[in-house]
């Protein structure tokens, strides 16, 4: 590793560590925590969907399983919801195993469809299995900490773990194999890549991190119900939009997309009400049209436009 490759992460880590001391009010601290939650969930999705090309329309299933692992531990066994942060990721991973083993043998949209169904199945089961889950009434706990500060650092640590995991994976043999599978599965197989197995290697950490994020969400928000944590629109689809906004298959895509999404949410909510989702949707459309690789993916293009430079032509020599 060169000194330069450490520079950006170090600066970001230092800024992230001191930020809550500059923004002392609970409100901006809450926004930072929400950004971290979405950045972690987005990073989990990006590993599987962005790098390995296996688009999941049901990451709410793993997020919700993490959240409910924590909530149900408290509900039935009176164990602290913090233990859910240990249990939740493994429950989410355990559910991912059979889904992956079945769907990854198929080609085409089957994985996307199966994950779409998975999220909805869990939402419906957890809504209607009232005895076990309290159904739509949800699970309410008492917050552990009176201030936001401990939550902020826990969220930061989880996001750090996600970024570390992503970077370790994509800067190894696995990363090359993930992208090869995304680009052409036949070519990948003919190069000796066991594609089903390597798709699992992307899927399992992705589900694990989504489960961990969900378990933290339960602890932080202190209330969950199936329509929130298993939501198709607000979680499964939104995480895809967040990553598309920031940059698919870019390590900084999810955090940047999350920051834009949460910031817009807060700005627009004050004077647009629930139309803030519409505003975000329009912005995503614009990003897809003009920055197809997302904000981070087109950073060079954005800089050139901002400074009115001519783009360097591929192949060169253009007057």
């Amino acid at each position: 590793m060169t000194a330069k490759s450490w520079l950006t992460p170090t600066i970001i880590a230092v800024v992230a560590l001191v930020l809550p001391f500059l923004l002392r009010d609970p409100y901006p601290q809450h926004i930072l925590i929400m950004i971290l939650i979405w950045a972690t969930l987005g990073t989990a999705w990006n590993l599987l969907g962005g790098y390995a090309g296996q688009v999941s329309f049901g990451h709410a299933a793993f997020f919700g399983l993490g959240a409910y692992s924590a909530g149900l531990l408290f509900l039935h066994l009176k164990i602290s919801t913090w233990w859910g942060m240990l249990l939740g990721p493994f429950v989410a991973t355990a559910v991912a195993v059979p889904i992956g083993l079945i769907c990854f043998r198929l080609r085409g949209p089957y994985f996307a469809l199966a994950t779409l169904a998975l999220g909805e199945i869990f939402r419906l089961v957890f809504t209607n299995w009232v005895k076990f889950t309290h159904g739509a009434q949800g699970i309410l706990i008492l917050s552990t900490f009176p201030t936001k500060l401990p939550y902020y650092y826990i969220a930061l640590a989880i996001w750090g773990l996600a970024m570390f995991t992503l970077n370790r994976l994509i800067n190894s043999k696995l990363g090359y194999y993930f992208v090869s599978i995304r680009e052409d599965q036949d070519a990948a197989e003919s190069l000796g890549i066991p594609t089903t197995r390597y798709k699992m290697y992307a899927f399992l950490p992705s589900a694990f991190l989504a489960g961990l994020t969900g378990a933290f969400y339960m602890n932080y928000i202190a209330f969950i119900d199936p329509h929130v944590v298993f939501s198709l629109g607000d979680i499964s689809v939104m995480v895809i939009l967040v990553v598309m906004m920031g940059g698919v298959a870019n390590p900084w895509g999810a955090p940047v997309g999350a920051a834009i999404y949460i910031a817009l949410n807060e700005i627009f909510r004050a004077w647009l009400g629930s139309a803030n989702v519409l505003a975000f949707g329009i912005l995503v459309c614009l990003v897809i049209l003009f920055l197809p690789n997302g904000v981070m993916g087109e950073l060079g293009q954005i800089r050139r436009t901002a400074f009115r430079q001519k783009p360097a032509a591929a192949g060169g020599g253009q007057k």
Partner: protein
Amino acid sequence: MSFFEVKNIVKNFGGLTAVNNVSFTVEKGEIFGLIGPNGSGKTTIFNLINRFYPLTSGEIYFQGQRIDGLPTHKICELGIGRTFQVVKPLRRMTVLENVMAGAFLHTGSIARARAKALEVLDFCALAHRKDVEAKSLTIADRKRLEIARALATEPKLLLLDETAAGLNPKEQEEAIAIIQKIRDAGITIIIVEHVMKVIMGISNRILAINFGREIARGTPREIANHPEVIKAYLGDAYA
């Protein structure tokens, strides 16, 4: 026991028999040519060997081991590499990364995969394009990338599917030179080719097929004069 043997292979697609009872053996170190008119089943035979399609019936042996039934990636691992007639570059990866994806078969280290890939790119005279995204290569370079990527998996047997198709005469000469260099490096080759200059010039033995059946086999000279082959390519009037 032959180095590589295909025994009575049959492939049906619904009611169509694409490959009908074809058998041949390939000896270590030779270049074995496979020719036939369009749609005669040449590429299908390749797709059966590396199991993109399962056989309807028949057997395939490589170094004494039966390989039909093994998954595609396992067949590559045993030492059978292939290229694609319709090239399949990993489009949003650079040329170097494409070849590294092949080189990772025998190493987990990025440094070693990169060294191996650079060596192979040098061998295929493609090193000057290493940092270019594969999607912006010319067709000649894409064909060469196919070969480089397959070579990076260190095959003992290489299946080349029309690597000279669509190339101009100068590029064809270069393709022939690369194929001969591969053989000289000790790699056995099965080659499917339409460009007669290429296949007649370098093959030790040739199998000609039409409608999925064998119509002739022999040395390039025997094949060129074989009435069935002339009939298949030019029609009855010339036979």
